[in-house]
């Protein structure tokens, strides 16, 4: 097996071992921290499909993260207050069921990704970056000025949503749910990156002209990748909202987009396990640097600058060596 595979296995097992250890020594806060890592990693796995495989520098992934969060917030708040979401043309009730919420989060994120992608993929390069950033800001301002769901203050959900057969309020059980979803997403993306679609997508990133010359339209490949990417990040948003039992417009901010991108870059762009390594590193930095200084973002900035200028390939790159074309 290749070294990168080993690094990946160790990361995934380590991510499971830490909360189990925390459970044994009764440190629920550490379990919550690990859950945060898992959810942020999932958001990064989503972005990585667009950014790493497709080469689409989206600075607007907070849109999907936020939509997932609000899908959870809106459904759960209606269920919490026993008021239907809509009575006309059909009756739509709120829901406290995680699977239902996930489905809605994925569907909404996917549809919005389709719309944003269809528009912004008409352009490329810098235009694409600016446009995705701008659409992100649009959702942010909309969420602030739309008063029905808390506006600027956001929405609090008092009890965590339900998953059949589990007590989701127990930190380790909720961790388990998120962990399984992350593993499934990693498996999916790993399959995807080796699939026919993945081959064409990566080729389109490296040389769009070549892909056209063999009769494949890069626009459609990228649009599908953008939608898949949005769906995964949206699901992460729904889980994140459930972890905090709170959603607010801050999920839609451009800083959120930037941070998701940082996980992917710190970990190693385009590598399946990159976002996991990046999210672990980000939370560790936040935890330890944040404990050292109130102004820890300065150090984060300096680190990021260092990685970009001097250490291409990110953490996985350092651990697993240069990227090799897999065969």
């Amino acid at each position, binding site marked *: 097996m290749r070294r990168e595979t080993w690094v990946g296995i160790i990361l995934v097992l380590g991510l499971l071992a830490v909360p189990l250890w925390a459970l044994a020594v009764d440190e629920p806060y550490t379990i919550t921290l690990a859950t945060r890592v898992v959810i942020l990693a999932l958001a990064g796995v989503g972005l990585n499909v667009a950014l790493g495989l497709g080469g689409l520098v989206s600075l607007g992934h907070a849109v999907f993260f936020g939509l997932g969060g609000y899908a959870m917030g809106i459904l759960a708040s209606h269920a919490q207050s026993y008021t239907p979401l809509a009575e006309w043309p059909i009756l739509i009730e709120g829901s406290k069921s995680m699977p239902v919420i996930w489905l809605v989060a994925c569907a909404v994120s996917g549809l919005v990704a389709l719309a944003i992608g269809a528009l912004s993929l008409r*352009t490329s390069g810098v235009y694409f970056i600016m446009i995705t950033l701008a659409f992100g800001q649009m959702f942010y*301002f909309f969420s602030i000025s739309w008063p029905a769901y808390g506006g600027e203050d956001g929405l609090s959900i008092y009890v965590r949503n339900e998953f059949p057969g589990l007590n989701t309020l127990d930190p380790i059980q909720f961790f388990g749910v998120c962990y399984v979803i992350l593993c499934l997403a990693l498996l999916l993306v790993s399959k995807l990156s080796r699939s026919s679609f993945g081959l064409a997508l990566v080729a389109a990133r490296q040389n769009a002209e070549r892909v056209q010359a063999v009769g494949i339209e890069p626009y459609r490949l990228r649009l599908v990748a953008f939608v898949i990417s949005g769906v995964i990040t949206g699901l992460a948003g729904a889980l994140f909202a459930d972890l905090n039992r709170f959603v607010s417009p801050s999920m839609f901010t451009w800083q959120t987009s930037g941070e998701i991108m940082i996980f992917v870059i710190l970990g190693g762009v385009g590598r399946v396990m990159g976002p996991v390594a990046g999210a672990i590193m980000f939370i560790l930095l936040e935890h330890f640097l944040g404990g050292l200084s109130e102004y820890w973002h300065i150090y984060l900035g300096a680190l990021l600058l260092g990685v970009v*200028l001097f250490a291409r390939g990110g953490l996985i790159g350092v651990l697993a060596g240069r990227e090799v074309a897999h065969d």
Partner: protein
Amino acid sequence: MSLILLIEQVLNGLQFGVMLFLMSAGLTLIFGVMGLINLAHGSLYMIGAFAAAAVAGATGSFVLALAASLGAAAAAGAIIEVTVIRRLYDRDHLDQVLATFALILIFSEGTRWAFGSFPLFLDIPDYLSGPTTLPGGIQYPLYRLAIIVVGLAVAAGLFALIAWTRIGIQIRAGESDREMIGALGVNISRLYTLVFALGAGLAGLAGALIGAIQSVQVGMGEPVLILAFVVIVIGGIGSVKGALIGALLVGLTDTLGRFLLPVVFGAFMEPSAATSIGSALASMAIYILMASVLIARPRGLFGAA
């Protein structure tokens, strides 16, 4: 709805527009000449505002404050160009985004460390405060009028600079063919530093001018940065003329949208619902404008085909 109120809103839109132009002009020049996307442009705007507030606090002079904003932002721009930015010119856009995002983190937290988290206030000087009477008997804040005048003057100066000066010729040459200017014996790295500092100075000036209307605080630059991106996408990357037209379009659309949409919805809805729906939609107006321009002209109104 009175005509006077509408004219006042149009002026507000213009004021917002020229301020956006000061931001976008630098961004679009930097992209046009060096091919760089600079997310830290909003930090330069913030630095200008903080420098102005600090100097105004120490000396009491608004003119000195404005000069300080220009100088500080231009200097900060020159420093980051020499230390970081020039390593990014031949990198891909992703690296540029990340490195300049890292600069935002450093600048924002550095400013918070130096000045604290509380907003500073920059006062409008006495000779510019209060309303003035325009032809037709319209009362309008003198300071906002001054911003429009300063903004248009800077725009005119910038166009003159690009059209007639030696630097302008080099900028235009750099936009059309980067290798060419090297062959002409132009000192490219000096030109790049100069263009970057010029763009930074304009952003700093905008920050100071707006700082006197709003408050001066960490994080003030990024929302304006993103609006400037919308302006550039509409106007076409690299085009200063496009930046001017785009900035005025965005300024007017946003201001008039916020003013008119609640009124429009009020015609057939109860007032409170009309206000909330109207203002929510108004917050989306410029993005809808951007999307429409994109559908019609993916390279912006004045972008190269």
